């Protein structure tokens, strides 16, 4: 059973660890680094709860091996808020638009939506629905989530104009 020493940057900090070949990035983040905001549900790439960004791309961390993250830059939901706890625009929009109920799927949604709005700052409703189609929510019926994405998009565009 091979073990690997890995080094990567997680939420701006240099991190290292020892992992088995089969350890997923999700398990390394949760168990190796204690970053339990990345949630695991299906563990085979269907639910999207474990979504993080690796080198700027949103990916499912249950479908990436920790050893494959050697040298990568990873951002998890813990890395979105400001140092003083100020929520990111997407996080704040989910709160304001009731984009969550139990909250289990929310970290994955927030990570996906953050990446989605960077690529498409002014999405149509149908593009929003496609953009969140890789994340499952069993509480909300998605209406509040779609509203949260709209709200976040509007605020991010306003901030862009103001900047």
């Amino acid at each position: 059973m091979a073990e690997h020493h890995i080094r990567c940057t997680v939420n701006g900090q240099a991190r290292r660890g020892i992992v088995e070949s089969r350890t997923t990035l999700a398990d390394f983040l949760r168990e190796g680094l204690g970053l339990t905001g990345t949630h695991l549900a299906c563990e085979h790439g269907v639910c999207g709860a474990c979504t993080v960004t690796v080198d700027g791309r949103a990916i499912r961390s249950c479908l990436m091996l920790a050893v494959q993250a050697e040298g990568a830059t990873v951002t998890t939901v813990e890395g979105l808020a400001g140092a003083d706890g100020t929520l990111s625009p997407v996080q704040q929009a989910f709160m304001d638009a009731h984009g969550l109920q139990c909250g289990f799927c929310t970290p994955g949604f927030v990570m996906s939506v953050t990446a989605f709005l960077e690529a498409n700052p002014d999405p149509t409703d149908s593009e929003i629905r496609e953009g969140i189609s890789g994340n499952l929510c069993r509480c909300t019926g998605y209406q509040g989530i779609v509203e949260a994405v709209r709200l976040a998009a509007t605020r991010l565009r306003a901030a862009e104009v103001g900047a």
Partner: protein
Amino acid sequence: MKAAPFDHHAPETVAEAAALLAEFGDEAKVLAGGQSLLPLLSLRLTRFEHLVDVHRVAELHGITRTDDALRVGAATLQAEAEHDAVVAAAVPLLARALPHIGHFQIRNRGTVGGSLAHADPASELPTVALTLGATFEAASVRGTREIAADDFFTGTWSTALAEDEILVGTRFPVWAGRTGYGFAEVARRHGDFALAGVAAAVALDADDRITRVAVGMLGVGATPVRAGAAEAALLGTAPDAAAVTEAARAGMAALEPADDLHATGAYRRRVGAHLMETALGAAIEEARRG
């Protein structure tokens, strides 16, 4: 669930990867983006002692255009190909099929070659490769060889690649002249595996007669399949809408999709004929404008 233990190998050249495959034989599997293999391992539907991870093999990455072909390196990300202007201009059918693969998070890890070598009969890229008559480049310690798309897909999740071979790249033919393309599929939810889908390409002469036509289907057999009867019905004609409908009906009638958990064969046949009509209609319309 968690995958059973395995050893992870990270070669940096095709030669190193081929040597590992030769050494470990059927105990090894190539790992590219992992978007199909890792779920299978996590569900313990399959198990390998060794994964040969080709992610860091630089020569497997990249997209190059020649006069008559677009070559996509096997480890090129689906997301990179999806947003590549060269791909969109050279092989529009490929560009149109790519967004139908899974979700954007999947395409951010999934590779073009991984999807082709995995050869799921309900997936998009094998159907595009078969429809356009792509050429597969394979390498092993025994040397390199090329495999025509017609010979590449041998069954569900099965290809002509030998156990010690690695897919290096795929060349998609570039169609010249007045050409048009259509891609259509039906899935229960966006990003799910398609129940059925159609890729279509046509070329027209100055009188709008079809000089070249290719129609491929996914989700209706153990491999992607060509709808030869539809192609034969259209070649050399300048079809109106009714003729396209009839060609699609004939194309689908020659195929026998099976029943499974997700849809009956009868449903697939019906929806397949409609999708073929839609994809062919769009392709012909686009070619006429060109």
